[in-house]
Each structure stands twice: as C-alpha cells, then as structure tokens.
C-alpha cells in the first residue's frame, strides 16, 4: 500500500492532501456545536500525521498549513475570521501548527532513512548474488580450462615420454572439458537471455515425442548407464509450444537427472494430456499438457526443494559441478510459455519434475486423414 501511494504523481498528492483535510474539516463543521474545537485540532493533527506517512514533504506541509488555517477560520471563535481573540487560543493554534510541521518533517526524514536502508539492502543482495556467480563461474569455467591447458602442456612436453594410451586419455579429457565448457557457456547465454527479457516464445505445433527422443539422442553419452523410459500415447496430439525452449527445458532436466542419480538409475519421461477432449480444434481453447520427468535416484533434500529453482543455487552436498543455472533456466523458460514447474520427492525414493502447460492441442488424426 505504501509503495502504491508513493508512486502517486505530484499533482495528485497535493490534491489528496487538500481533499482529506477539507473532508475532515467539513465533517467536523457539521458537528461544531457538539464538538470542542480542541478535539477538532486533534482530529486534523491525525489527518496530517496520516498524510505524512504516505505523501511527500511538500504536500504534507501544505496540509499542515491548510489545517491550521481551517482550524482558525472555522472553529476558533470568532468564526469566519483569522482573528484570534483569546490568548490561550493563540497559543493553541501556534502549538497546533508547530506539531503539524514537526510531525510532517520527522515522518519525512524517517522515510528517507528507510529508503536508504532499503537501497543498501538491495545492494548487499546483489553483491551476494554477484559473488555466488563469480564463485560458481570461476569454478565451473576454470576447471575445464585447466584440464585443457594441463593436458596440452603434458602432450607438448619435450622432456616427458608419454605412452600412446595416455595421450589418447588426455585427448579424451580435452574433449570432455571442452564439451563441459560449451554446456556452461550455453547456460550462461540462456540465463542472460532470460535476464534481459528478450525471450519471445515462438509458439508453434510441436511433436513432443519427436522432441523428447531428439533430446535423448543428444544426451546419449551422458545416459549410457541409465535406463530411459518414454511414456507417450501412440497418437499423441500436437501441442502449441516453443520447440527451442522446450528442447532446452527437457535437456536440462534429463541432464540433471543423469548427473545426480547413480549408474543404472531409471529416468522416466512421461507426456500426458486430457484424453477425453473432443478434438474439435479451437485455437482459443487451452488444454493441459503435463510432462513429468521422474527418476529413482536419491531425491532432493526436503529442506532444499523450494530453493533448487533459484539462480546459482546448488545443493549443500553437491558433488557434481554445476553453475546452479540449469534449473533456474528451466523455470524461466517454462514461465515464458505460461507454464508451471514443480519438484517433488517420490515416497519410494527419487524425484519428480512436473511441467504443466495450458496450450492449444490438435488431434493428429484429423490431419492425417486429409
């Protein structure tokens, strides 16, 4: 509420301060015969204090001056003059004006200090995020670079004699390191695409089964010791999604599962949709498309489940490398397509990522019969 009020335009702030003082004054004026003018003074003070809590300094000062004038003009005898006959009343009016002013100025100062504190806090948080980024980046990028440089140095060394077998091993380390480096750079680029807000999903008809198998094919090296199961209808309809973003999402989730589950673990990718829908295609009708990626590994620590989608977040006891970007990219890309992603642990062990997209759906039978 505060932040909303603070965003009000200057002119409107003046208007609000005038209107609220006048409004209370008019209310009091009707009850002038029953209400002591001192009470009216207190009421107007309350109004000024309230305004001070929300508005800028000048509208507040205006309300202080205005309420003092109104108090004098309407409520302090003689009515309808700015003349004050009683010495006590003069003192009261003077004190009223003083308190209103101090009130306004103090509140304004407190708010200013609060704002500075907030900015400081944001700065500290940005620094924390920045440090987390630097930490994970320097580790994630420097490790493969060191591997490449070290291997090359060893191969090039004139003083060492290296067996052909060991040379081959070093070559394969260089290859792995460069693939890893490429993967991390890809993640960083995707993250900065998300951050800069330039992602505009190109929604088009996707054959999700084809897409999933395509991704699995590109990950076959990482998945060679895993059991992969794809569950999808023979006549899976087409869904309107962004093919490129979907590829990245599935890639990151399956890649993650391959890294964090032991050899031999099962990874299941399931595509579900509302099977009862009458397939009259209607471009405005959105149907649920649910993709689950489940594994029977060790699952995620319950306490950390809420944080895994945060930027740069890595599990406390994470042994495998990672920038902590993979899952936050998943979240960003899912949300860019108006979808939702959740993570749960299964009772019998392992974790389930569930992607939910409300999308137009098209029955393929209609087309293939044409």
């Amino acid at each position: 509420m505060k932040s909303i009020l603070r965003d009000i335009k200057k002119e409107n702030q003046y208007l609000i301060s005038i209107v609220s003082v006048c409004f209370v004054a008019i209310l009091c004026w009707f009850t002038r015969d029953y209400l002591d003018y001192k009470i009216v003074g207190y009421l107007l003070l309350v109004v000024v204090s309230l305004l001070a809590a929300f508005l800028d300094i000048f509208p507040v000062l205006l309300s202080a001056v205005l309420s003092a004038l109104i108090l004098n003009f309407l409520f302090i005898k003689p009515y309808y003059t700015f003349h004050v006959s009683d010495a006590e009343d003069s003192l009261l009016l003077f004190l009223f004006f003083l308190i209103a002013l101090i009130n306004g100025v103090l509140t304004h100062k407190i708010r200013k200090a609060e704002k500075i504190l907030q900015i400081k806090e944001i700065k500290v948080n940005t620094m924390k995020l920045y440090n987390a980024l630097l930490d994970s980046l320097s580790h994630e990028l420097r490790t493969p670079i060191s591997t490449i440089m070290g291997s090359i140095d060893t191969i090039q060394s004139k003083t060492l004699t290296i067996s052909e077998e060991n040379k081959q091993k070093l070559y394969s380390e260089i290859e792995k390191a460069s693939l890893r480096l490429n993967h991390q750079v890809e993640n960083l680029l995707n993250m900065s695409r998300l951050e800069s807000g330039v992602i505009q999903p190109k929604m088009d008809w996707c054959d999700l089964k084809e897409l999933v198998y395509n991704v699995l094919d590109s990950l076959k090296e990482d998945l060679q010791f895993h059991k992969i199961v794809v569950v999808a209808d023979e006549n899976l309809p087409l869904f309107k999604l962004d093919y490129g973003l979907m590829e990245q999402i599935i890639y990151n989730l399956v890649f993650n599962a391959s890294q964090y589950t032991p050899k031999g673990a099962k990874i299941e990718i399931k595509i579900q949709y509302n099977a009862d829908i009458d397939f009259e295609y209607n471009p405005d009708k959105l149907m649920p498309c649910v993709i689950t990626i489940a594994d029977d590994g060790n699952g995620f620590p319950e306490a950390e489940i809420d944080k895994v989608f945060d930027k740069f977040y890595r599990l406390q006891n994470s042994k495998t490398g990672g920038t902590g970007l993979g899952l936050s990219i998943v979240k960003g890309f899912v949300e860019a397509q108006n979808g939702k992603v959740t993570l749960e642990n299964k009772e019998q062990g392992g974790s389930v990522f569930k992607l939910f997209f409300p999308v137009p759906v098209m029955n393929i039978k209609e087309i293939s019969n044409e």
Partner: protein
Amino acid sequence: MNNSAEILIIDDEVQIRKLLDIALESNGYKTLFAVNAKEGLTLAANHQPDLIILDLGLPDEDGQIVLKRLREWYKKPIIILTVKNTEDEIVKALDNEANDYLTKPFRTQELLARIRTALRNIDRNENEPIIKFGEISIDFTSRIVKLKNEILKLTSTEYNLLSILVKNEGRVLTHQYLLKEVWGNNYSDQTQYLRVFVAQLRKKIEEDSNRPKYIITESGVGYRFNTS
C-alpha cells in the same frame, strides 16, 4: 568423390582459419582464405571455388548480405558457419539459398561430412530417374518407393514430401519451404501438417521412427534427409 575440390573459407577468426586449413588440407581439399567480405567476394569471383564456407559475423559486412551477393552468380554449395545460433538467423540464411549451416562450436567430422554431401550433390545428374539410399529406392518416373525391395504404400502427400527431401539430400529444408512445395503457398505457416506427415513417413521408412536415421529434425528450422 571429388576430394581435390577447392574450398574458399571466409572467416575473420584466425584460429578457425588455421583449424579449417589443417582439417581440410589433410582430407585432400585445396583451401583458399578470406578474412573479410570484400576479400571473400573477390576471391570467389577470381577462383570460382567448388564450395564456400561462410562465416555470418564478418567485420565489414553482414554475412547474410554477402550470401545474397554470392548467390547472384555463384551456383555451387555454400555452407554457413556461425556463432549466431538463433533459429531466425539460420532460416534467413537458408532462405538466402545457403545449402547448409553449422553453428560454432562445431565438430570437424561433422563439417567434413557436410562438405562431402554438398559436393556429392553437384555431381549428381538432376534427371536421374532412380535414386537409392541404403535400403530405400525411389523411382521418380513411376513414383514407386521401395524399402528392402518391397514396394511401400505411400499416400501422394507422403510421396511428395519424401521425394522433395530425397532430391535435396543432405540439405536442410525449412518448414516454410517444405510446406509451400508440398502443400502449396497458402500452407506456409501450417506446421501441423508437416509434423504429422513427417511422423507418418518416419513410421514407414525408418527402422525405429523414434530414432530416425533418414529424416533428421533440425530443431526450429526444418528437416534434412540424411544418408551419411
């Protein structure tokens, strides 16, 4: 195979030029190098290379414009090599009649395979009546497709789609291009047809339609008929 072919590489990165020089020379190709668009266009005109590898991010001119200018007279294969891996950029290059594209970082083996395919396609007689790939043969005069010597029953749309893919073997055909060629101009954004018919065709010609060997998906861009 025409391995003494001359290849022009237009790329401003010295490291890439060195790498390509070694990779191509050791595979028997002759190489020519240009470090910018101006030099590239001159070398292409003077030497008439058999194939051009073009980087899209050149210092003096947008690669897409270079591509267009080359295509005004150069009919041989052009392979795009680029760090810009956005779908739009790739589709634009293919629309500008690039034969193929690879994004950096790329694998040398992959590039060599693409070069071989592109060069093979020039040698092929356009009017060959029968084309054979592995276990598939297509007779264009009688419109008969055989798999393992057995006639495949294809609908006419399936046949049209397959024949256009096969005739452009190794080349990436964009969604839009395929839709226009097979279904007609009004269908250029109706990707659902392509998705469904590609899936159907795969079920008929691929051993495992989930792991296709012939009809390869180029994600977000189009499809390629692969025989290597």
